[in-house]
């Protein structure tokens, strides 16, 4: 009985739990000399160090659809900014990956068919 109440409470505050993880990303970036310029939504923001980057936060265990990822990349292309995924572990460690859409050219080394 007590247990289920705890779970219920946890669920209610899950938004805040998420925010703590998001906060870790901001802290980490600031420690690396970034300035947070603009928050576009609860997952996406623009930060700057030498140049501007568009960030998307992915929390461990939370899936995003391919479509979501693609629209993030498209937005980066529109804004002419490199797109960075900030991967946050469930305890707040952050790892960064660049992501881009690849448009492959015809292989110049292709052998005669």
């Amino acid at each position, binding site marked *: 009985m007590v247990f289920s109440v705890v779970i219920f409470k946890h669920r209610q505050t899950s938004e805040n739990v998420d925010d703590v993880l998001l906060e870790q990303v901001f802290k980490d*970036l600031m420690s*690396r000399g*970034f300035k947070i310029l603009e928050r576009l939504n609860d997952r996406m923001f623009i930060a700057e*160090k030498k140049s501007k*980057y568009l960030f998307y936060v*992915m*929390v*461990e*265990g*939370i*899936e*995003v*659809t*391919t479509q*979501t*990822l*693609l629209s993030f*990349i498209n937005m980066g292309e529109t804004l002419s900014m490199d797109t*960075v*995924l900030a*991967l*946050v*572990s469930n305890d707040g460690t952050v*790892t*960064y*990956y*660049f*992501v*881009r*859409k*690849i*448009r*492959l*050219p*015809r*292989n*110049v*080394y*292709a*052998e*005669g*068919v």
Partner: protein
Amino acid sequence: MKGVLKGLAVVVEDVEFARKLYKEGFYGRFLGYDKVRREEVDKISAPLILALYEALYLAERGKLKVVSKNGTEVLPEKLIELGREKIKNFDDIYKIYKYFRDLGYVVKSGLKFGALFSVYERGPGIDHAPMVVVFLEPDRGISATDITRGGRLSHSVKKTFTLATVSKQTGEVVLLGFSWAKL
């Protein structure tokens, strides 16, 4: 121009034809050899084993006639049927195979990299770092773990890897490139 379907692969016994296929775009693998260089091909007299994707691709282009053990022709449609029956996501995966091949890339198994395909510009044994291509099931989302796992698959220090999927809306092959960012 013949290859015999044996289970999920096709065997080319004719040595001359096997050499030709291999030289044309590194199709298949010579039984008992790995990463054979183009200039070494003429010294090799071994059957060539083609993966189902390769055999299907070549058969669709009229470059290979696949036959069953009793000699009757196995049409591309039959190969597709077999693939669908045995291999998960066969249609999407073949589409991705075709996408790279049509652009002139050499596509090999990705198994030893823990991936779907390894893709080369010049060929195995020549390119030092193939493009490691991981398949993303269209219905599935993507998670942070998928991305770091992909990073672990590639040899390069920059940890570059490619995720390939087929868009549900357009049916197009979508390639996403990921690389570790030292910010």
